[in-house]
């Protein structure tokens, strides 16, 4: 409620933001992850560099794949026809972040930089093979989403680096879905499952599965994917995947006092089945 004292500067461009940021500074975009933490005095950055109005961080472009500016709001992503066409699961996940007020302010870049393990978009980004594009004092680099999320609230971002955009392959030919079991208190995910199935005739050529919420970070689930690939995604395959996914996340489990790890692990299996059913429409 009463944050510590901090300096504030507004950047007009990515270059300016990179030049303004100080050692104990943080970038401020929508503020819907950072400001609550500051109000609770859980974090006390000495400086905020406001990147919320930098034009080059805004917008969605569809050109073979999707490139989404880091400053694009969850609402803009959820309601984008291009995102709905090329990665329906991401549109769905962004539409389930917080409430409408949060989605109107919160940004994709801010969300993944914060790396809340129970947030929705990271799970889809990991499942769908997204790339996080980063600028720093030493230039640009790109990191696969799967490698970007390192641990609880921990990412591959180095001090002073800024996420500029997120790229995703075109997934319009896939059956994809994100299904979430919301925590009754916070509406963050108790478990969130993203599924992307590339079907070749009646057979699954490639399956991508990721789980969040139940884990300290969004986790790619190779066992579940293997159980689905090459099958017709029949009941036996789905049940096998639902078993496998529990093993996939076993090393990464997270929970809270009301919804412990063991419960979330079991629910990952249930929700994988529901996500597959949703993906198959």
């Amino acid at each position: 409620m009463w944050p510590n004292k901090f300096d504030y500067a507004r950047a007009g461009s990515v270059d300016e933001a990179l030049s303004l940021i100080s050692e104990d500074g943080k970038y401020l975009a929508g503020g819907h992850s950072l400001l609550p933490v500051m109000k609770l005095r859980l974090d006390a950055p000495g400086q905020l560099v406001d990147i919320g109005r930098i034009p080059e961080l805004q917008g969605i472009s569809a050109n073979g794949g999707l490139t989404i500016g880091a400053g694009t709001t969850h609402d803009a992503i959820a309601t984008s026809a291009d995102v709905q066409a090329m990665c329906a699961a991401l549109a769905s996940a962004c539409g389930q972040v917080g409430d409408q007020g949060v989605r109107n302010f919160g940004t994709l870049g801010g969300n993944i930089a914060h790396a809340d393990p129970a947030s929705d978009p990271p799970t889809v980004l990991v499942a769908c093979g997204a790339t996080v594009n980063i600028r720093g004092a030493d230039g640009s680099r790109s990191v696969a989403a799967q490698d970007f999320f390192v641990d609880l609230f921990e990412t591959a971002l180095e001090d002073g680096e800024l996420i500029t955009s997120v790229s995703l392959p075109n997934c319009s030919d896939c059956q994809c879905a994100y299904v979430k079991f919301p925590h009754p208190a916070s509406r963050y995910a108790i478990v969130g499952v993203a599924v992307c199935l590339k079907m070749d005739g009646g057979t699954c050529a490639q399956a991508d599965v990721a789980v969040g919420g139940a884990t300290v970070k969004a986790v790619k689930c190779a066992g579940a994917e293997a159980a689905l690939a090459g099958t017709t995604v029949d009941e036996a395959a789905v049940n096998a995947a639902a078993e496998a996914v529990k093993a996939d996340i076993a090393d990464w489990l997270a929970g809270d006092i009301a919804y412990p790890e063991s419960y979330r692990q079991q629910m990952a299996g249930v929700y994988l089945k529901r996500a597959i059913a949703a993906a198959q429409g």
Partner: protein
Amino acid sequence: MSTRIFGSGIKRREDPRLITGEARYTDDIKLPGVLHMAVVRSPYAHANIVSIDSSAAQAMEGVVAVYTSEDIGDGLAGLPTAWLIPDSDLKTPEHPALAKGKVRYVGDGVAIVLADDRYRAQDAADAVVVEYEELPAVIDPEEAAGEGAPLIHDDVEGNIAFRWVMGDREASDAVFDAADVVVSERILQQRLLPTAMEPRSAMAQYNAATEELTLWCTSQNPHIHRFIISAVTGLNENKVRVIAPEVGGGFGSKIPCYPDEALVSWAAIKLGLPVKWTETRSENYLITIHGRDHVQHVEMAAGNDGALLGVRATVYAGMGGYLSTAAPGIPTILHGLLYVGPYTMGSVFCESIGVMTNGTPTDAYRGAGRPEATFLLERMVDNVARAIDMDPAELRRKNLIPAFEDGHEVATTLVYDSGDYPVAFEKALDMAGYGDFREQQAAARAESRYLGIGVTAYTEMCGLGPSQVAGAVGFQGGLWESATVRVTPTGKVQALIGASPHGQGSETTLAQIIADELGFPVDDIEVIHGDTTETPMGWGTYGSRTTPVTGAALAQASRKLKDKARVLAAHLMEANVDDIEYADGSFSVKGSPDQAQSIQDVALMAHLAWNMPEGMDPGFEESQFYDPPNFVYPFGTHIAIVEVDAETGVIDLQRYIAVDDCGPQINPEIVAGQIHGGVVQGIAQALCEGVIYDENGQLLTGTMQDYCMPKADMFPNFELGETVTPSPHHPVGVKGVGETGTIASTPTVYNAVLDALAPLGVQQIDMPLTSAKVWSAIQDARS
């Protein structure tokens, strides 16, 4: 044909200012030169204070002072407990405004910082260095009363603050020994956070020249706050003015007088400057009272024919680190006396043990003792039904007290005022389609779908209450109310009341009573409350008492005015008083309807006093004290239908039916609003709300991210019905309705869920029924 404003669902007159953000709350009031208070709070649940070093904080920019209990010395007396229940060996340990040598819960105040800015005050509070010696903590009340528990107050042996017994133990034993069936259960009434929308706030200003202290604060009972602030500061009560401006809900949490109100008062006197404190939501969850917190061991005795014979319970009630203002009365007087409910049950016994723990102090939370009683009763009735294989609705039907119009004494010694329980019960069953549901349930079970129904018949005691009873049960105050109806020369009405509504819509409801009695347009009536200097004495708004008690005072004051108006109108029209007819605010002479005096005309003439009858005083204003001869006893039946997803444990509340009888409804929209809000809070206790501490007494549910507040999308549209049984002793027949929803709904939904889970073999789950607990219970029952 006149249209009665009484009974009309007019819009709440307080809403425009509330929903446009124009309402003025305590924190909105700005005084020049105000200092902001931040409180250094204990991070430990139980610890000795070794040292406090505030030198760094004192040196910070904008900091005016830092004080500890040593600095206060005897400047503030300890906060009193104001419900001294008799025959219970009650101990009232000292509750200093700032901890002296020892802290007893996380959030206990250790020091205060006064600064010119709220941010600076918080920075300085963070810079106060306190060295603690941590002690073992205990949170569970039964454990705290057990052998070897850490002692929290040296003068409260075994942590037992009181032991209150209702009923005859031997007589109870005889009933239970002879009964065909005895069922038992250990019930946890978990701690709840009241979570009023507006957190608490207090601001004090002292005028040294007049020795007057003004305290603006979030209070449900400013006159009680005045009394306590006077007692703890030593100021004469007539020099203390307490103002409760707009107050954004309380649910009981704004009844107590807290350390914070005393501290701003003391600091304002000490420094000669106004001092303000407003809690954050995190502080609200740490330090504002919690509700419930019972461990109950309950038994019920019944015959194989379904006759309910008796109920008995041993209750361990967690009091927290200190005894809050009304705390001892909640798990005793307001709890045990409700053990009969609406049933013809002849034997009751309750032993309630108040236990000090290292939790936040508990006190009255919406329903206050009565939800805890209704839950155990309704839970046990369902257990009896299961034990004797009788339908739970049929079992209730068999045991309901038949209709009575004017008094019915039950085994707890209460005399219920009026009731027709069977009518409300059958109406609710009809609305729910109970018989058809049992068929649907059987069909669903065949498909492994788990539907359940819960039925609660209830009555409760509210409209607190006769002052003689208050005295007999140790409540350190009266429970009457007073009101003044004042009419201005131009015929506008100010109704001044001692009660202090804070969101209930009483400004509308009470105006409707006056409008109905006197014939003034409701829009010309202003209900004024919440200022000890402006309003007459009153004991506050809680216990569903403002409509029944203040409403009665206003009705009677209005009737006095009407009597005066009739005499004056007769005089002005040169007619005999007996020939005066009254309708819709107009007095006329029988037989000559063209000659009339409106109530406004009469009011003006009373003020002018140019032509008064012999012996009549001028002016148009009457006051009334009203001490109710009995409590009022609303009643009804609630029904819930749920489906449980056995794969996840998620509960889908599909239907909720509430038939309530609060006597004649003054404003059906406001009644419905009270029932909706109460039902939501009660269901939330069953399904999602619950305080969790860790073994060290750290609050794990300290924010709404973890403490699950109910949300609109968790609920179906409520299906409301009513019956109307007037209270025989009340001037307009009304009963309270502010708490019925929380009293009836928790067991209704709980029993529905357990009914759904019955075929899976699940018999008991501690509240709240989170999906994780339901799922685990299903797994345990299967294995």
